[in-house]
């Protein structure tokens, strides 16, 4: 294993991620935890643990991204998720395109130019309907594990229509569908359709250019991936470790100094 040369941390709303890269920008180690309320302490603890994993007495330069980036101490840089995801995706895949990052409380569409820089971006505003929280909320209501949502959506033989684009109102729809005896998998499939519809509309506002790259925790959901490909008619590219992409981009920026 090459020597770690920089750290990146993505203090997100749902999960907190730290990664280490070597001098060539290759990922050498990572850690991921659900975000806890005391983010400042959590970030320090995660970084100390990463140092211990790698046997480092002194941490290398660090860059922070994510909602909690201002709470991370001893950073060389604090950069937004937009720039970090674009940088991480371009390095991991070697090409640009449209990156759709669906995180816990926001969704972003970023058009990455041929040089790896973000050209344009859009984010959901004042509403969590197109985000991971939408699915988490619904999963809790349906008594289904979040990790199983995607496969159950794909396995569904039917699809219920979830008309609402609001997380809270969608819950009301779910309750009435359950009350009518609708199949749970069909509801799950409908929820995915609703989320994907919203995300694709947002991706179009930045001028959707192929390929479509997915990142964030929701990228691990096979149902979302399949429906995104179907809705856009574009192949969906998944970078290695899509959940770590923001932290990876931050580490690359820390490496640049």
């Amino acid at each position, binding site marked *: 294993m090459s020597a770690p040369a920089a750290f990146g941390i993505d203090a997100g709303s749902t999960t907190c991620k730290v990664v280490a890269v070597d001098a060539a920008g290759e990922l050498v180690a990572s850690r991921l935890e659900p975000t806890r309320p005391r983010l400042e302490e959590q970030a320090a603890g995660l970084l100390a643990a990463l140092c211990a994993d790698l046997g480092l007495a002194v941490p290398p330069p660090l860059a922070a991204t994510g*909602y909690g980036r201002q709470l991370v101490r001893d950073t060389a840089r604090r*950069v*937004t*998720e*937009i*720039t970090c995801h674009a940088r991480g995706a371009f390095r991991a895949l070697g090409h640009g395109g449209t990156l759709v990052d669906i995180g816990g409380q926001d969704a972003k569409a970023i058009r990455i130019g041929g040089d790896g*820089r*973000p*050209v*344009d*971006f*859009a*984010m959901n*505003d*004042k509403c969590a309907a197109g985000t991971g929280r939408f699915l988490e909320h619904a999963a809790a209501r349906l008594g289904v594990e979040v990790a199983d949502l995607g496969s159950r959506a794909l396995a569904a033989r039917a699809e219920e229509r979830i008309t609402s684009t609001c997380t809270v109102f969608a819950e009301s729809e779910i309750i009435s569908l359950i009350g009518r005896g609708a199949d749970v998998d069909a509801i799950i499939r409908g929820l995915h359709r609703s989320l994907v519809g919203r995300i694709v509309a947002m991706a179009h*506002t930045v*001028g959707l250019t192929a390929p479509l790259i997915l990142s964030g925790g929701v990228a691990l959901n096979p149902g979302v991936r399949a429906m995104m490909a179907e809705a856009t008619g574009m192949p969906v590219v998944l970078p290695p470790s899509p959940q770590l992409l923001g932290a990876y981009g931050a580490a690359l920026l820390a490496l640049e100094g």
Partner: protein
Amino acid sequence: MSRLGHLVGYRLVGRPGLRLQRQREERRLEKDSAGPGRPLAPPLRSIARMREMMSRHYLEGRHVQGVRPVAWVTSGAPTEILTSLGFFVVYPENHAALCGARRRAQRLCEAAEDAGYSRDICSYARTDIGSLLSGDTPVGRLPRPDLLLCCTNICQTVLYWYRVLADHFGCPLVLVDTPFQYGEEPLPHEVAYVRRQLEAIVPAAERAARRSFSERRFALVVARAKEASETWLQILERARHRPSPLTAFDSFTHLGPIVDLRGEEATTAYYREMLAEVDRRIAAGVGAVRHERHRVLWDNLPIWYRIGPLSQWLAARGVNVVASTYANAWGELAPLMDPADPFESMARVYLHPILNRSAGQKLEAMRRMVRDYSADGVILHSDRSCKPYSLGQIDQRDGLVNQVGVPALLLDADHNDPRAFAEEQAAGRLEAFVEMMDG
């Protein structure tokens, strides 16, 4: 009694008091030099005179009832006719902006909402209606109107808003309807239509003022309005200089007199003085933002309750918002004004505001401004409750990104209602936008 109040409260005590206050502020500003840690240059000294003028205006408003005829008008109304007849003119929109800047707008909006006005209505309208119903205003008291003058060249909301005012005050309402402009030039019948309406203001205004209209005085006021607007435009255009001697936030702050007191002699003198100060800054190589790295164009109304923090935040990152379609609106019409043919030319002027023109025309105006002000990016304030200004911004943003090739950000907020503004989300987007300009 009212004349005595006006004489004592306004002329003998109020005005000299405000003059002293201004002189004190000027001395304080004189000593104010931006330390190395401050991202912005000290405020322009002329801000003291601007504050004096606006305070004087609102102070006179407290004592003017029964002394001068009073008219309440929309921001795009042909006020020159009224000024020539000696009216004291109140701009509810300016008053609402003042409430916004003083962080009073939310509770006034809520007062209007409590009375049944929807939260979807323009937050200026809600602020003013709330102020009317509650009597709460930072200016002490607004005089009751003898006449209402409403021009639809900024939006259709004003039509309903002014009907509410007419009903509340029981005074005459004169409406000027301005056909929406899709082309470069208005059609002859449209100009004739608006001209006829401008001429029809005269008898209603004469009745309210109990004074006869004089075309000579009207032409004089138009000449002054033209000169003030031209000077205002020259000030704004000085921001083409690099580094820019002023920011769009400065222009938002200094906008009061050109809106409220256009056509008065003191207004022209004030803007001449401001222009001279801006020129001195250019000669001394002083930029409004100490380390100007990026130059940005602003579209739509200001976010009144966040002007200071937003201006500081951007300046700290080396971003100078050098121009705005909004402040420009009170300058760009100057060339159309013709004192030799006041009715005809003012009909053209009042047909032409950016809000009365198509989305494509607005994109063209922005494209020109990006070029003329060497802007590296555009912030389009998507204004929750100003639909006419915000409609078309998604296409305009696309045009700016894909045709003009500059980064453009749609920033969700509201001009006066802070409940439609999320600090954290706005900061995240602005930061990503600045990083994009950094490359």
